[in-house]
């Protein structure tokens, strides 16, 4: 046991001292904040002014009202051009020149048909922007809707009343009580949980593999193996690297907690004015979710690190190892690819299957925990399956490791591997 401790300490100290650790510890949260914040900021700031012309070929003045409605929506500036129906095409041609000269961004052509059967045309340079088109069509639809109701004799005040938009407030029910966590907050939490688990298991697993390959290529492994049992070396290595992972999570966790606690102050410092409800309420993270997260991180990391170590022991160079590790990485990527499916339906068949199958459960189960309520039976059976698989995989991996670290030359075939596993 003392010797395992010696290996653990070396792996831990040597890693924490590297520039890589310091950089990833600092950059990790920055990246994560960027992932969440950049789209939000883009959404707010990216609303660039668009100049729109309305080619009004209506006889009812609808074009003018439409232009007014568009002009009132913040990012748009709109003016209407009264045009007889016969002149539409020639006006359109000259407007197209203006679009080319970037004087206007685009133009809407409306005639009486627009209100009757909803046919409106928009030509512009920004038609490929889904966001712009979404805004456009929503505004035009609203204007047409109002126009139709007005035509049918509905009172304008009544129309305004009817148009007050719906505000659906989502709150997560956990443990049979309503929490303050919003639906959006749960989604972000699940997303962060996924990112941390995926990156953590992958990066630290690959790290273990690199360490095995390093000892093999530098040949120091032979000296080590003369004083340490292969299992002691392997266990010490996995625990040491895992310790670095937990240490990094702890740094992030503490920093994150402080930042969340002081987030309003922070936003004020950044010069953001935050109107009360526009920030999603930060999800409440119950202790049991943290425990589930750490438990699955450790079990998942051990499972994958053992497989990565075996792959490292089979190969003789870093490049060869990376190639051979593809299979292991694929197993890890699988739940990530299906993430959206899990989040859309956290209690669906796919989510339940992925969170119980041992190779995908380390990521799928904590994500489900963050997103929804998971029955205890499912959690327990998932943990039991994962633990049993971990034992079996570690047993096989350590046998491959034991023989592999001293074997150089060509990569072993499947038959060779079977023989390695069988040898006493």
């Amino acid at each position: 046991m003392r010797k395992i401790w010696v290996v653990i300490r070396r792996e831990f100290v040597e890693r924490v001292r590297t520039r890589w650790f310091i950089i990833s510890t600092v950059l990790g949260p920055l990246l994560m904040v960027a992932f969440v914040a950049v789209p939000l900021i883009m959404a707010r700031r990216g609303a660039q002014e668009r100049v729109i012309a309305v080619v009004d070929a209506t006889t009812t003045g609808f074009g003018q009202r439409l232009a007014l409605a568009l002009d009132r929506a913040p990012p748009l500036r709109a003016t209407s051009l009264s045009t007889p129906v016969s002149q539409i095409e020639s006006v359109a041609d000259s407007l197209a020149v203006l679009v080319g000269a970037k004087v206007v961004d685009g133009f809407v052509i409306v005639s009486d048909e627009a209100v009757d059967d909803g046919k409106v045309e928009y030509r512009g340079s920004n038609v490929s922007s889904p966001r712009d088109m979404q805004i456009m069509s929503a505004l035009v639809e609203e204007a047409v809707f109002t126009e139709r109701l007005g035509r049918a004799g509905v009172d304008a005040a009544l129309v305004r009343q009817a148009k007050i938009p719906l505000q659906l407030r989502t709150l997560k029910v956990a443990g049979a009580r309503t929490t303050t966590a919003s639906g959006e907050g749960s989604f972000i939490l699940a997303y962060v949980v996924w990112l941390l688990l995926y990156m953590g298991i992958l990066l630290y697993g690959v790290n273990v593999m690199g360490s095995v390959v390093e000892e093999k290529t530098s040949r120091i492994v032979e000296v080590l193996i003369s004083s340490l049992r292969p299992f002691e070396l392997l266990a010490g290595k996995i625990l040491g690297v895992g310790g670095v992972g937990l240490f990094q999570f702890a740094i992030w966790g503490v920093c994150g907690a402080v930042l969340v606690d002081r987030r309003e102050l922070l936003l004020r410092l950044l010069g953001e004015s935050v109107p009360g409800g526009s920030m999603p309420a930060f999800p409440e993270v119950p202790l049991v979710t943290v425990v589930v997260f750490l438990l699955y991180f450790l079990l998942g990391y051990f499972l994958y690190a053992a497989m990565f170590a075996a792959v490292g022991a089979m190969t003789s160079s870093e490049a060869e190892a990376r190639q051979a590790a593809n299979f292991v990485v694929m197993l890890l990527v699988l739940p990530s690819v299906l993430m959206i499916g899990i989040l859309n339906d956290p209690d669906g068949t796919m989510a339940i299957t992925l969170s119980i199958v041992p190779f995908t459960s380390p990521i799928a189960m904590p994500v489900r925990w963050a997103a929804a309520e998971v029955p205890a039976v499912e959690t327990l059976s998932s943990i039991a399956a994962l633990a049993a698989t971990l034992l079996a995989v570690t047993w096989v991996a350590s046998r491959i490791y034991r023989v592999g670290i001293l074997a150089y030359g060509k990569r072993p075939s499947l038959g060779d591997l079977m023989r390695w596993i069988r040898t006493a």
Partner: protein
Amino acid sequence: MTPENVVALECVTKRFAGLVAVSDLSLAVPRGSIYGLLGPNGAGKTTTIRMILSIIVPDEGTVTLFGTPGAGRDLSGRIGYMPEERGLYRKMQVGDLLVFLAETKGMTRAVARSEARRWLEQLGLGAWERQKLDALSKGMQQKVQFISTVLHKPDLVILDEAFAGLDPVNAQVMKDTVVSLARGGTTILFSTHIMEHAEKLCDAICIIARGRKVVDGRLADVRRGHGGRHVIVAVEQGVGSAEMVLRDRSLVAKADAYGQYAELEVATDADPQRILEALLAAGARVTRFEIAEPTLHKIFIDKVGAEAASVPAGPGGDHA
């Protein structure tokens, strides 16, 4: 098993995928001796050493260390091992690396730290303790590797191809240190395929070829046991001028000519003095005439044949 033998192998056999790397090998390394495990490349030296260290397990036979039943790994605190393929953590600081390796041998941190300093000073690397290994020259790295082998004060030091890849300065340092360790009571087991090294250093040897023992014992006994009387002759114009005498089978049973001198095996009934007389009579100007014991190289060639000295036992026989 007498505890007088630090290492004892009994009828040890190891096969790799059907290929016999070591076959029925028995040997004993006496306490305090410098013991040479000799043989050509691929003879099974490395495999034998790995079995002694319990890095690999013999298929048959037993390995006993220090007269106790423990395996090599359990006794690793008493053993220092330098493998043929040298290598260390290149990104670690020299001092930390030495402390770590000593700790895996069971030494405490504080003691390892001070011992590492002492050794680094002694071999002129004191200023490099806090440098990364990468920053050291190859020769310096070899010294660090050697320090890591002996730092924990082992009773038994095992050096695989001890002098391979060493520059002349380091080879000298290595030889001096090995001799002084042996004087201090440490048992040294080293393997080499260069007989001259063994000849200079060893008290006892074991020659193996193709995984089998050819001969073993104290060096003096091995020489005596080889039989025959040997004469080393050097002649002014080179031994070629005395060829007539060397070919005389009534005087010389066998001659190995090396250009500058020749090693002769005296014929069974002949008197070495008669050879000298014959040489002088042939008009050769003799500059050296020495009645000697056979060299290890000669013993080796005689025992296994020149062909076995160069042909490896089989692919992977030495390294698998």
